[in-house]
């Protein structure tokens, strides 16, 4: 009894201290969360402000984050009136789906062969893949431009898809994941008469959803915002993706900031949805591979 009476006040004090530190931690986290959310909030709020003068006046201060004054969808309407936004949106989605979709297949198969098959030069290939990760696309765009021009691919879908299907970083991620999958699974399937294709499709793939999700998101983010390459290889509106199309608003002064923010909002939302859809698997993969975007 005496022991319990003595322990009670101490627990209370400890609980109070713990609550206080938790409150401080949460306050800190809320501040940080707001800090990282500010640009997105600013963009969405600004896209809804239809008074261009008010929008410009608010851009310099805290009022930029507050939806007040003339609020509406006028900026979004203007984007659709001024350009073929639907076309550009389709182009970006199509290029993204094709690049990431085919990339997942090609890169994972390549990584699987590196992780499981034994052939001459395998170790060199792994080294080459790792080395290629550090070569930025920007450094090879000029020779790439000359190459695709030679084959007549300028201003097309394939010129925006094919060069980016094979991706060293994706191969490396798949490779890292596959070598951790116990070989016992493969061997059991092989003993049962399965071929390598069946092992890949029916054993490895079902076990690898987290890494597929991670690669899909990382590649998705990269391709959705790709600007320099489509700028160089597209001409008319037919194959123009969103990052190049938004340049239409960066024209004569003064800038139409309302339209720019509306365009940016419509460009950002699909990526947020993509992330939310794959979030569970993405987190799993980050936890298991230590890779983050």
């Amino acid at each position, binding site marked *: 009894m005496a022991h319990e009476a003595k322990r009670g006040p101490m627990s209370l004090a400890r609980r109070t201290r713990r609550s206080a530190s938790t409150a401080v931690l949460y306050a800190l986290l809320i501040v940080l969360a707001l800090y990282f959310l500010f640009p997105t909030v600013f963009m969405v709020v600004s896209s809804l402000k239809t008074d*261009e*003068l008010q929008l*410009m*006046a608010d*851009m*310099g201060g805290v009022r930029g984050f507050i939806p007040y004054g003339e609020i509406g969808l006028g900026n979004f309407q203007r984007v659709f009136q*001024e350009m073929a936004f639907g076309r550009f949106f389709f182009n970006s989605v*199509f290029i993204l789906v*094709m690049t990431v*979709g*085919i990339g997942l*297949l090609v890169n994972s198969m390549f990584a699987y062969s590196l992780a499981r098959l034994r052939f001459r030069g395998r170790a060199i290939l792994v080294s080459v893949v790792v080395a290629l990760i550090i070569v930025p696309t920007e450094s090879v765009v*000029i020779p790439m*431009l*000359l190459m695709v*021009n030679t084959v007549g691919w*300028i201003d*097309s*879908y*394939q010129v925006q*898809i094919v060069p980016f299907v094979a991706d060293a970083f994706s191969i490396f991620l798949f490779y890292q994941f596959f070598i951790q999958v116990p070989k016992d699974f493969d061997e059991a399937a092989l003993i049962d008469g399965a071929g390598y294709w069946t092992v890949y*499709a*029916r054993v490895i*793939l079902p076990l690898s959803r987290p890494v597929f999700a991670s690669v899909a998101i990382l590649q998705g983010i990269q391709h959705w915002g790709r600007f320099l390459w489509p*700028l*160089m*290889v597209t*001409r*008319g*509106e*037919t*194959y123009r993706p969103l990052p*190049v*199309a*938004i*340049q*239409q*608003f*960066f*024209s*004569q*002064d*003064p*800038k139409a900031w309302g339209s720019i923010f509306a365009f940016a909002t419509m460009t950002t939302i699909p990526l947020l949805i993509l992330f939310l859809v794959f979030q569970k698997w993405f987190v799993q993969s980050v936890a298991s591979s230590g890779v983050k975007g």
Partner: protein
Amino acid sequence: MVRRTVCIALLAVIPLAVFAGGQAEETGGTDEVITVEVWNHSGKGAEREALDASIAAFNEMQDRIQVNLTRLPEGSYNEQVSAAALSGDLPDLLDFDGPFLYNYTWAGHLIPLDDYVSADLRDDFLPSIIDQGTYDDQLWSLGQFDSGLAIWGNRAYLEEAGVRIPTSVDDAWTFEEFNNALEALQALPQVDYAIDFKMNYGQGEWYTYAFSPLLQTFGGDLIDRSDYMSADGVLNGPDAVAAMEWFQSLFQDGYANPTPPGDDSFFGSKTAALSFVGHWMYGPHSEGLGDDLVLIPMFKGPDGRQVAGMGSWNWGITSSAEHPDAVWEFLEFLLSPEEILRMTDGNGAVPARYSALEQRDAYSDGGMLSLFVEQLNTIAVPRPQTPAYPTITAAFAEAVQNIVNGADVQDELDAAVQKIDQDIEDNQGYPTN
């Protein structure tokens, strides 16, 4: 398993089908008709509509030449043109912002127009248009319009402050008069800033277009124009430094706002008494101020020099054009007075030909905008006619931004000179042969 295999197969097949479709679209057309491919920056809505109408009219009035327009986003226009030049698929005719002509010409992307332009036609263009289109003693480009840059004023404020309102280039304010005018206007209770320099346009071509005439008014310049080989001693010389120190003082002393919250301090809230901006603001200005709107010529510098900005988008025929005669036929149509007026009635710019100008009251003697024509005829100076211009404008604009923000003027101009001279050195002085 089957479903998964089908999905994988579809992933592989769909792009092939689409690519095949995309390529099929590109074939077609007839052999008899000459197709002229035209590239144009996206620009404003009125400009797009005017050009679309001109092309439709040309395609309808004859059946030998078919003009196809591709419109590129203005924010990345130069980069896309450069990429196309690199891959060798430039169109037959393209437009470009005035001073970028020289780099395109030097790189061999354009053909001269001298053989196409008759003496009469040349004489009908404003001299500023001919100046802008000339490089290495040849004419390479022509535009439908030029720009006008001057000082817009609020008559009520000017009269209340007792400031004289000049009406012609000769009659312009002296440097001392201009400074006194700023002081008198700043003292008015309803005025927050005596002059609006449109700093809200942000760092870019506006800074060079608008503020390099201030350098020249003081005797400085962006580069030594005797041989275009260096900016040293010119852009960072005592005259240029004095010009930019004076410009900086206008912001530091509160006569101008370095970070205007909006675009309307002159014509909306009317908290600015003067506005230093181009012809494109005539519509909002006249709507906001009505009869109180006056257009004031560029002031005279400390030594009496007077310089106005000029230059705008213009057209050039590329060296990859297979049928340059057909391209010129279309360009000649585009440069006819009727088509020029179709464009300038939409975008408010100064028509490039006298035969077009005389059809509009605003530009005739005594007209509200006639001062722009007078300046273009007398004191307008083209931006440097050198292939190094893209580097010059980027370096100068950065220096202007830092100077307005309070940086040391000499240091900033020295840094700009270093960048410009380095570029010229890297390109071996941009040899023409």
